[in-house]
C-alpha cells in the first residue's frame, strides 16, 4: 500500500523563483494496482513518481509505503528501499550504451552481491520473459528502440520489485512497439506488481487492465 498524505513539493529554482510542483496531494494506491497518472508536461506526474521512489523528498507531507514513512528516510536508507522495492522504467531507458544487454540487466543485482550462478539464473529468467534473450551479448547502443525498452523493463524486474514505476514509457516508441509495451504491462499486472505510470500518451486511456486513471493538473489531483 502506497499513501501520499498532504504532499506539497516546491522546487527552488533560485532564491526568488519557486515552482510549486504539487500542492496538498492525497493519494492511496493499493498493492497490485495499476495506476495511470495523466496530465500535461509540468503537471507534477513525474514528481509523484520521484517521491514514491524516494528519489526526492516532499516539501511537506508524508509518503508511506507498506507502513514505512519513506519520505523521512536518510539517503543511505532511501537507496536500500529503492534497491529492494522499486523497478524503474525511464522514458529514455537510461541504459549504459557501452555494456551488453546482460551486463545492463545485471546492474541492479551488483549491490546485493549474489553468486554468479544465482545472478545468471535471474537474468536469464527476465530476458526470456521480456523476449530479449537472443540479444544477450549485444552491446546496447546497437539495439533498436523497442529492444532497448525491453532491456530496460528486464532490468527493472530483475530484482523482482514490488513496485514498478514508469515515466513516459512509450514516448520514444512507435505505435506497434507501444502496443507491445502494453502487453508487457498486462503481464506485469498479472504478477501482482503495483505499477504506476506517468504518461500523456492517449494509448493508456480506457485500458481494461488499468485500475485507475488519475488526472493531475497544476500539481493537484483533479
Amino acid at each position, binding site marked *: 500500500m502506497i499513501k501520499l498524505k*498532504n504532499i*506539497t513539493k516546491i522546487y527552488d529554482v533560485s532564491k526568488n523563483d519557486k515552482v510549486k510542483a504539487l500542492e496538498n496531494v492525497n493519494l492511496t494506491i493499493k498493492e497490485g494496482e495499476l495506476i495511470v497518472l495523466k496530465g500535461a508536461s509540468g503537471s507534477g506526474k513525474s514528481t509523484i513518481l520521484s517521491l514514491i521512489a524516494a528519489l526526492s*523528498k*516532499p516539501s*511537506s507531507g508524508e509518503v508511506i509505503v507498506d507502513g514505512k514513512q519513506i519520505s*523521512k528516510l536518510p539517503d543511505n*536508507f532511501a537507496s536500500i528501499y529503492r534497491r529492494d522495492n522499486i523497478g524503474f522504467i525511464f522514458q529514455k531507458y537510461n541504459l549504459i550504451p557501452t555494456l551488453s544487454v546482460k551486463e545492463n540487466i545485471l546492474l541492479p543485482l551488483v549491490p546485493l552481491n549474489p553468486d554468479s550462478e544465482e545472478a545468471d539464473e535471474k537474468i536469464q529468467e527476465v530476458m526470456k520473459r521480456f523476449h530479449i534473450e537472443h540479444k544477450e551479448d549485444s552491446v546496447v547502443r546497437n539495439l533498436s528502440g523497442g529492444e532497448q525498452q525491453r532491456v530496460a523493463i528486464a532490468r527493472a524486474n530483475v530484482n523482482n520489485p514490488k513496485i514498478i514505476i514508469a515515466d513516459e514509457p512509450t514516448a520514444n516508441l512507435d505505435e506497434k512497439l507501444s502496443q507491445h509495451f502494453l502487453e508487457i504491462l498486462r503481464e506485469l499486472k498479472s504478477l501482482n506488481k503495483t505499477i504506476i505510470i506517468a504518461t500523456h500518451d492517449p494509448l493508456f486511456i480506457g485500458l481494461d487492465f488499468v485500475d485507475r486513471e488519475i488526472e493531475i493538473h497544476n500539481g493537484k489531483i483533479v
Partner: protein
Amino acid sequence: MIFTPEVLTIFILNFIFAFFAIIAFVLSVKIFLKWDLNSTTQSQYKLEKQSYLAATIIKYIFAIKVPLFLFFIFTLDKLSHVLTGAMCAAGVVDATPYGTYLFIIKIINLYLFAYWLMLHSADIKEENQPYTKQKFGLFIIAFFLLMAELILEGVMFSSIDVDKMVSCCGSLYSSSATSYISNIFLIDTPTLLTLFYGNFLFIILFYFLKNRYLFAISNIIFIIISLISIIVFFGTYIYELPTHHCPFCFLQKDYHYIGYLLYALLFGGTFYGIIAGFINSSQKERAKNCKISILLSSVYVILLSLYPIIYFIKNGVWL
C-alpha cells in the same frame, strides 16, 4: 612571529576550518533548537537537508583535525631547531604563555572530535537517526573549543620570538622545576606503577565483567595516569637517562619516532574504551569497540613495559 611552511599550512587550514565551522555552527543551532523527526512540515524537511550539509562539513573538519594533531606535534618539533635553547617540542610549547593551554585544549578536542565522529557514524547507521540532536548539540560546544584552539594556535605561533632564549625540556620536566609539572615528581615510583598497572588491570577486569561505564571511566583515568607515568618513570628508560623526563623527545628520529606510535596507541585504546561506554550502539558494535580498546591498550602497556625490562636485562640495574 614565526613563519615556516608547516606554520603557514596550519594557518591556512585553520582559516578554512573556521570559515566552514561557522556555517556548520549556524545550522547546528537551528537543528538543535527545532529538530523534530516526527514532524512532516516544510521546516523539518528543510532541517533534514541542512543537517546533511552541516554533518558533512563537521565530519570533514574533524576527520582532518584528528590526524592533524600529529602534524601539530611534528611542527613544534621542527620549530625547536630554530629556537635557542629548545631541544624538542617542549621548549616550543613553553616559549609563550599560550603553549600549555593550547596543548591541553588540543588534547581535549582530539577526544571530543573523535567522539563526535563516532556519534555521527552511529547516528547515520540507524533509520531514525537517534543521535542527531545530541551530535549537533555536542558540535555547538565543540565549536567554541575549536575556535578557542584555532585562536590560541594563531596567537601562540604569532607570539614566538626567535631571538628569545627558551627553556629546554630537561629543565621543564624535572623535580626541581618551578612549574606545576614538578608536583607530579612527588609521587613515588612504586605508587605510580601500582596505579598504572592497577588501572590497566581494572580496564581488563571491567572488560570481562562487561561493565561498559566503569570500563569507560577506567580508560579516562588511564589517559592521565599514563601521561604521568611516561614523564616520571617510563621516559627515563626510553632515553636511558635517569634525569630526562621529557614526553616529547621520544617523538624524534633519535628514538625511532616511537612517541608517535605510543601516543597513537594510547589515544586509540582509551578513545575506543570511552565510546564503548558512552555511545548506545549495538551490542556487537560495542563489543568490537571494547576489543579494539583492549588490544591497543595492551600493545601500549607491553611496549612501554619493555623499555625498563630490556634496560634491566642489558644493565642489571633499575634507573
